[in-house]
């Protein structure tokens, strides 16, 4: 039973990891930007949520209504300024700039908010409570909600990109910016919108992690960015549903590792990631015909 429990917990935390990963995947898919500051921006979103909750007294569960739009605006602005500028100068500059951003954000958080870790909404029934199946399996409501949110966000994104008019424009821009520009659309604006979407999901991921566990300045890199990346690679680059699968595989690997020995949790996740890199570097969901 303990193993069944580990697998269920793993699947559910996989939803959280998919939430981390879809912003990374989206920005790479559309702009070919690998945003190394991805995780730190999620932490910024989490801290913003804490600020909104404690200072403006927005109810905890509705804090995302403020934080997600704010992060989306920040995403648009960052894309139009720093990231676009660095894109014009090549991939190398993009990496250097986002890595610089990551280190700056992390150390600024450390400087202004200390290294203390803080949670979001501790004590709320949704965050604390769980229900049990049988005597051994205990499932936190929060994890179920986060998993549901991840599925909704991913299907929403998938639907938006494949069906809507603007989604088509985004895909067209991802394929050929110059052609889009010739057709009368400003690809920089489209990139900005894609970044805003990505940052919105980053904000959700940051808040969700703050509720699930605790946020500290270093969480952004040593947890969120690396897990998001592992989920993307395991699932297969550029596929949104693959990202969910990748998150789930990572989550299950970690929980099974933790079941063997609690200190194997992180290591087990990374070892699965390395195994995928060795045996199936194109990811689990890769199909040849896929564009």
């Amino acid at each position, binding site marked *: 039973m303990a193993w069944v429990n580990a697998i269920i917990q793993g699947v559910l935390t996989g939803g959280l990891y998919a939430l981390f990963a879809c912003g990374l995947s989206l920005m790479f898919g559309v702009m070919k930007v*690998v945003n190394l500051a991805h995780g730190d921006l999620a932490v910024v979103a989490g801290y913003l949520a804490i600020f909104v909750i404690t200072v403006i007294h927005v109810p905890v569960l509705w804090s995302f209504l403020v934080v997600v739009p704010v992060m989306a605006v920040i995403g648009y602005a960052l894309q139009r300024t720093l990231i676009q500028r660095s894109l014009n*100068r090549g*991939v*190398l*500059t993009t990496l250097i700039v986002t890595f610089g951003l990551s280190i*700056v954000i992390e*150390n600024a958080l450390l*400087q202004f908010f200390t290294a203390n870790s803080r949670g979001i909404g501790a004590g709320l029934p949704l965050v604390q409570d769980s229900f049990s199946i049988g005597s051994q399996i205990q499932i936190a409501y929060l994890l179920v909600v986060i998993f549901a949110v991840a599925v909704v966000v991913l299907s929403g994104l998938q639907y938006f990109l494949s069906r809507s008019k603007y989604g088509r424009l985004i895909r067209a821009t991802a394929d050929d910016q110059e052609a889009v520009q010739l057709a009368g659309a400003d690809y920089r604006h489209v990139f900005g919108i894609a970044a805003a979407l990505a940052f919105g999901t980053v904000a959700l991921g940051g808040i969700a992690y703050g509720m699930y566990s605790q946020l500290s300045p270093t969480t952004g890199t040593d947890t969120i960015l690396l897990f998001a990346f592992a989920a993307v690679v395991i699932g297969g680059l550029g596929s949104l549903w693959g990202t969910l699968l990748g998150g789930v595989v990572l989550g299950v690997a970690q929980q099974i590792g933790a079941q063997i020995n609690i200190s194997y949790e992180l*290591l087990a996740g*990374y070892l699965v990631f390395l195994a995928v890199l060795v045996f199936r570097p194109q990811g689990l969901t890769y199909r040849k015909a896929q564009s």
Partner: protein
Amino acid sequence: MSVATDAGPRRAEAFRVTRSRRNVAWTGIAALIVVVVLAMFPYIVYSGTTSILVQAFIVLTMASMWNLLAGYAGLVSVGQQAFVGLGAYFVLILAINGTSPFAALPVAAIGCGVVALPLWWLVSRLRSGYFAIATWVLAATIMLIIERFSSIGGGTGMPLPGFSGFDPTLLTAYTYWAGLAVTVLSLVAIYLLLRGRLGLVLTAIRDDEVAARSSGARVGLARMLVFLVAGAGCGAAGGVLAISQLQVQPSAVFSVQWTAEMAFATIIGGLGTIEGPIIGTAVYMVLQQTLASYNAWYLIILGLVAIAVALFARRGLWGLVDTRLHVRLFPVGYWVRLGGEHPGGVRTGPARPALARNRNRKPT
């Protein structure tokens, strides 16, 4: 170091090829003098100064290696702390088994170079951005594995043994010389590497990877070689780090901060030149020493400056010097001069940073 290679008998012809626009033989002599003076420092300055310089040597070695990766081979690794940590642990393990930590340094360097081979096999499957994060994941994984072994200190680390017989003053001096030796050897190795065939291949890759490939340049092999050398160099720097701190702590030696420092120093000084990391390290040390009492501020400022340099002055501080004076302290490229007079200068050679590569291309 280098004398302009005049094409002696062909002087009558319309052009000649030199390594630099100016004769830089004097820089070779100057470099030698600088090294000799630096080597005498333990006799003439306080130990506080030498320990700051040891720090500078560590950063300079790492920055030069990162420069080789990013500036010449186009590989942005944010996981070089894996090798810093491994180097430190090689020294620790050998010291536990009775080897002198100083004698362990070359072993640490070679060991890291060897370990870099399977790691390259793993991460080379991914390109640019994903390569960067993959190296980061590798560094995290290696740290987690090392923390499993309680005989080498587990998660908390342990003090470095093997120093019991040393007089403290002598130990400081030895540490300093070890740091100096590692740095000088690293710089010489990089210089020779870039002057040789590998430098030419890397230049070709930088300018046009597809063309280089189709002309028979072994792109993958060149990149792998650079990755191995950078691994060995960062390992040696990690070994010096362990000796200078007299202890090894996994979260400290495997900290991503090392990669941040080496990357920022390189970018500020000038990516894609050997001189860049030297200047960048000087800037880094000045900032770090002045802002030492303000905790994380030096990294914040360093990061902001690096971002600004990457966006607005891609060739860094040395680039500014070079544009005005056309000086190359470590000439690895060639100048073609028409008539032996003023250059209608076509400069080849890996002097321009790889950053410039995609300047006019659409972002792909």
